[in-house]
Every structure is written in C-alpha cells, then in structure tokens.
C-alpha cells in the first residue's frame, strides 16, 4: 500500500516547547543526568504543591460515583462559582455564559473553530504562546501576528495592530499576564485595545490564565471589567493559579450584548456538545479552589518574586543580554545582542554543551529578523537558577570571547 499522506494543513503545526523536549529526551537516554530544565511552565515539576483541599474535592466526587458524563457546559456548581468570581472582579457573566473546557487549549480551539473561516484572519501577539498559531494552522487559517514592543515593557504596539487589520480580520487575542514576557497590561493599554476592537468590529479573546500570579507591584485588571458593551471572551483556568496543569481545567466567559454575541456563543456551545464534556470529577475542584484558602498563591508569588529578581539581575549582568522585569506569570524573555541567525540552534547548542534547556524565541512566533530572544522559566529553586545562569554565562562568553 502507498504511504498515507498527512493533511496539508498539518505542515505548519508546530509546538516548539514540546518539540525541544524530544531532543532533551534523546540526551537523557544517552545517560546525561544533569540537564537543568527551564523550558516548561509547569509548577508541579518544581517545588509547588497542589492545594490539598482541591484533591479532596476530586476524591469525594469520584467516591460519590460522579464519574459519568456531565453537562456539556460544565457542572452547575463550577459555573456558579465562576459567575461569583467574575462578578467580584467587575465582570458580569451569568453562569449560562460560562463554558468549562479541557484546559484553555480546548477552549481556544472551540472558540476559534466557531469564529474564523479560512480566508479570514485573527490577530495573535508576537512574541506569544505558540498554541494560538498552532490552533489557527490546524483550522486551515493563516496566522497573522501583531508586535508587542520591548521598549515599551512588551505592551501591544497599537500602531502595528492597526496596520495588520483588514476587512477579513475577525478578532484579536491578548494574553495578560503574558507568556513569554511576563508583562502585565495597565488599564490604558486595555482601553486602547477596546477602542480598536469597537472601531474595527473585532472580537477580543483575553487569555488571563496567569491572572493571580503577580509580583513587582503588578496589578491585573480583567479587560471585560472595562467594557460591558463590547463583545469579549475571557479565558481562565485552574492550571497555573491553582497548580494543576495536568488536570486540564479551563473556562471561558462570554460578555457583551446578547444580540451581538448570542448566535456566536450558541455556535461554540454546539461544538461543545459534540465533544460531550470536559472531564467531570476535576470540575468539582473549581468551587473549592476559587472560594477556599488562597494562601498558596501568596506563597507562590513571594517565591516567584525572589526567583525572577535573581534571574533578571544575573541576565542583565551578562554581556550582550538584557531583560525586562516581569510583573506576572513565571517567564522572562531576554534579548541577546550577538548576531545569532538560528535561535533554535543556539538553544540546542546550550542543551548539548551546557545541559541547560530554554526555549528559542522563534518558537513563540517571534519574527526571525528581529533580535534573538529566548524564554526562561523562573519556577525552579534559586540553586537551580544560579546553576542555570552560570551555564548560560558560559555560552555568552563563547559568543563574546575576550
């Protein structure tokens, strides 16, 4: 039989963060045991522990035989808790406008599949979380990137956004707090994005998965709290704030006038029904997570403050490297002045020679012709970060031998 030929649209589907893990896996299988992993944004891999009361809630649900299919929108108690949480933050979304999904990954896929026809476009940020363009490519929609500006604290470049909009542009995504830069957007930025969206009829997707992970004085405003009359999708989840990325629990809230957003929301719900439901038992952890003790967040943010300070200081001290101070999430996105033509090659080199694993900027849709950047995760303990900084210093010394 002839070889099976994969579909065309899959050629462009990449996910650098995980693709590098394959290279690290090969090194490990060759006996290398001292790799320092600064590549995956997974707190559970480091010294962060899932709050026990959430695990108890899931245990209880399973023992009560709540192991069957649940409502396609998500269990009522979870959506009620989310309605309350959003109301407390100035966002009016009643529970019928909230959908629970298998991670924000699934949510984005449902939302984009229900919105964008091929031939149309949807704006996503550069640098940005690569899942956005992966999903667009999966749908056969060509990604269209808008720049965020390093000189301006990695805020969206509004002039650049305006040049990217045409009559086929359906919407724009902002990720705040930001992966990979750690930026947190002030209200002014959010209001300007709302203005552009209103003027150009764009649906805003706000990925706010890191919204409680804040330090260095960072304050997060949900964009939906600034405009109830502009249609908006706000995405969030338990993964990062509540230390359970492996559970795949996310959600989206639809806000805006019913006559503008109602049909679209029903389309998303139709697609949601066709995949039945998100995993049931974990949804019983949403209410206890949102309404129970929040101490672990304070502790996490205190740790991250120290760790990001360490990393920022060490990086800025390296010749040819400079990094913006993050205010949220757990990443930094340093720039390297040396002329590196292949940032992935640079990263694989650092992995092979120094056994330190970071992720190349082009893996975050950072344009090739811009200065090289890499993403470093600031989750590991100080000792590991110190060790990693030392190894990166060695790499930089090779780039700038004196």
């Amino acid at each position: 039989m002839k070889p099976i030929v994969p579909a065309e649209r899959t050629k462009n589907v990449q996910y650098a963060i995980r693709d590098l893990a394959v290279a690290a896996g090969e090194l490990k299988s060759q006996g290398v045991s001292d790799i320092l992993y600064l590549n995956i944004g997974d707190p559970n891999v480091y010294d962060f522990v899932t709050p026990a009361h959430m695990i108890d809630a899931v245990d209880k649900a399973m023992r009560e035989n709540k192991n069957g299919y649940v409502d396609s929108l998500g269990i009522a108690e979870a959506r009620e808790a989310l309605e309350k949480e959003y109301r407390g933050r100035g966002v009016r979304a009643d529970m019928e406008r909230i959908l629970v999904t298998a991670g924000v990954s699934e949510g984005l896929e449902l939302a984009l599949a229900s919105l964008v026809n091929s031939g149309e476009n949807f704006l996503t940020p550069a640098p940005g979380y690569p899942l956005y363009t992966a999903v667009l490519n999966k749908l056969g929609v060509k990604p269209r990137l808008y720049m965020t500006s390093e000189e301006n604290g990695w805020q969206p470049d509004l002039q650049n956004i305006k040049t990217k909009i045409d009559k086929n542009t359906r919407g724009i995504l902002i990720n705040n707090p930001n992966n990979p830069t750690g930026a947190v957007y002030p209200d002014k930025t959010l209001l300007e994005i709302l203005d552009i969206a209103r003027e150009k009829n764009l649906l805003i997707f706000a990925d706010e998965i890191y919204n409680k992970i804040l330090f260095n004085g960072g304050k997060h405003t949900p964009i939906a709290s600034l405009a109830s009359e502009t249609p908006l999708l706000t995405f969030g989840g338990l993964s990062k704030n509540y230390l359970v990325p492996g559970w795949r629990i996310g959600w989206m809230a639809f806000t805006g006038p019913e006559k503008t957003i109602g049909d679209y929301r029903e389309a998303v719900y139709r697609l949601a029904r066709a995949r039945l439901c998100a995993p049931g038992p974990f949804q019983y952890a949403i209410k206890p997570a949102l309404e129970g003790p929040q101490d672990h967040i304070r502790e996490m943010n205190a740790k991250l403050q120290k760790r990001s300070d360490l990393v920022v200081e060490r990086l800025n001290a390296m010749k040819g490297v400079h990094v913006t101070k993050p205010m949220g999430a757990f990443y930094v996105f340093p720039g390297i002045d040396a002329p590196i033509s292949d940032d992935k090659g640079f990263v694989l080199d650092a992995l092979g020679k120094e056994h330190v694993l970071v992720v190349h900027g082009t893996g975050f849709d950072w344009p090739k012709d811009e200065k090289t950047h890499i993403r470093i995760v600031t989750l590991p303990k100080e000792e590991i970060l110190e060790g990693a900084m030392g190894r990166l210093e060695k790499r930089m010394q090779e780039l700038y031998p004196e």
Partner: protein
Amino acid sequence: MNKIIPAERANKVTYAIRDVVVEAKKLKDKGMKILNLNIGDPNVYDFVTPPHLIEAVQKAMAKNLNGYADSAGIEEAREAVAKEAARDGIKGVTKNDVLMSTGVSEGIELALNALLNPGDNVLTPTPGYPVYTAVVNKLGAVLNQYKTDEANGWQPDIEDIRKKINNKTKGIILINPNNPTGALYSKKTLDEIVSLAREHNLVIFSDEIYNKILFDGEKHHSTATLADDVPVLTFNGLSKNYIVPGWRVGWMIFSGPAETISDYKDTVFRLARSRLCSPGPFQFAVKPALEGPQHHIKEMNDKLQKRRDLIYKRFNEIDGFSCAKPKGAFYAFPKIEIPSVKDDRKFIMDILYKKQILAVFGTGFGYAHPDHFRIVFLPPMNVLEESLNKLEEYVKENYSK
C-alpha cells in the same frame, strides 16, 4: 458593533443526543419525571466505577502528579495498552504506537484532522455515532455515508461501501460493537472491509470502545488482528468498559506497515503536542483497569443481557415496533412500524411530551429513513418495563385501528 457571525463550519455541527436533552430539561424544570433512555452513560444507572481505579487516581494526585503529562500519554498507560493489544492479537504494537486522548472524541478529531484535506471524504456508517459526522463537518471535509443492513443484523453493506469509494476517499470508520444498533461485526464482514481498504489505500478507523460489553458468549474481533499489512487505528478507552465516561480517558493504537503509516503517525503525535496533553491523573487508572480485577465486566454484562432480553422481546411483541437483536454495547435501534408516523423527530418529541420517555431520533444518527429511534437498555428492569408499557399505551392511545 455588528453581530458576530459564526464560522461556516460551526453551522453544520449538530449532536442530536445532547440536543434532545435541551427539550427534556424544559419538562424537568416543570417538575415532571422523565424516563431517560437517551444517554449511554452507565454511571447514571446502577453501575459503579470499580474502586481500584478511583484509588489509583487518588494516589497519583496525592503524589503531586498533577502537572502536565507527556503529550502521547504517560508511559505506564501506553505500555498497558500495548500489552492489551498484544493479548488481543494485534501484532507489533509497542508503547510508541499508542496515543492517549481526552476520550475517543478527541482521538478521532486528532486522527481525522491529520488526514483529511478539504474535499476529501471518509466513509462513515449510517446509522452511526454522530461525533464522526460532526468532526468531518468541522474539518470542511465531505460526508460519505455507507449503509448498514438491518435485515443482516446491521452489518455494514459491503456492496454499498464499494460503490461509495471514490478517488477522494481516505479512510473508513467502523464502530464495533455498534452504537446505535448494538451490532457485533462478523469476521467475514471485517475481512471484506479489510480487502477493500487494501485495494483502495484506505485507513481503517476501528472504534472498539464497547469491545468488552458482549452477550450470548459472542466473541469480538479486533479489526487490526485480521491483517497486518493494512493501516488500522484502533480506538478504545476506559469510558464504557470501565464505567468512567466522565473521566475522558481514551487511546488510539497504530498498526500496519511502518513505511505506510509512519508519516501519518508522526503527524498525529505532533498535533497532540500542540494541545499539550490529556488529563494526567486519570491516566494512572489505565494500567490497573486493564491488568487488575475484571469481574465488574461479567457483572455488568449479566445485568445488561437480562435487560437486552427484555427489550428485544417486548419491542417485537408490541404492535407498532420491531427490533433487531443487539449483540454488544447497550443500545437498541427499534423500527417504528406505525404507517402514519412519518417523522422520527416528531415521534420522539411526542413520546417525551405524552409519556415522558426520552429517546433519540434515528435520523440524529444519520439514518436515511425517519422511522427508527435509539434507546439505551442501561436502566434497571422496572424502569425498562415501565417505559415499554408506556410505549405500548402510547401506540394504542394514538394509533388504534
């Protein structure tokens, strides 16, 4: 701002099974008691998840295994699935040929997304589980439905399949044991389908999610065991056999010659990386499920066989219905033999409003004629008896000669 218009592909997506629930909810909200014969969820009835599965998940969470898992699934789960495949007679499968997915629903989407270009088609059975047509529509591919033959125990109609294959056909989907008919495919049928696949370069997608739910001592044949020179994706999961549909634990097994499937397999795994992973903690229940105690399966099948016997007998006795005998899974697909009933959807709404029985209309499963409906025989005997009596009343009250 202008109204947001949904994408074309979203307009074509329907899912009858959940869509009727919306109607029933209106009655429930008024306080009426509904006899639910619509959803294939054992947990809603008197079936309990085996405790050792729950313990395995509890243990994983307590050990803080709550982070992202490998995109292909955790190693011990994939190894357990590979071992089970070998026990079933599928040759040459290692853990590297297994991908864990968030239910078979997600698995099918990944597999078809990796294969179908717009304008391509994949053969899907009618009647058949509606997720397949929903995914084909979502991908902008073309529906190409093949008949299954009620007179022949709902086996796939091989001649019809042969007629429907064209140069844009990339694969064929089998659901065995079958939802919604309860058919169990004979070795002869499967051999013929394998031949067609070989002749026309088709990938076989064999959905075997109900493969341990069997009656009358019948044996299930896993398609991939019949030919190792044809590419087969075998789908299965914990949902039905192990009574945890809400956990969304599924998997797919790639078999066939390496040079035929390797690019395609790599693509599916690459698409899987871009959605990160399937829920981690539940994957720790796969090995205990497949290798631990299996007695709940015999208990489940003993219960279900009695319930199957009841509905098969009664549907063939009641004037106005007939029904083929289900051999596996927990569904029956009776025929409405009332001449003046010409619309299965209206029939379903009528029995819902007049007798508070909730079933699903046959055309919702892609069946070409509006004269069948699907019921589940998961409920206990007394609920099934009550439902059958009410259906008999309904026919007498509305269609007496």
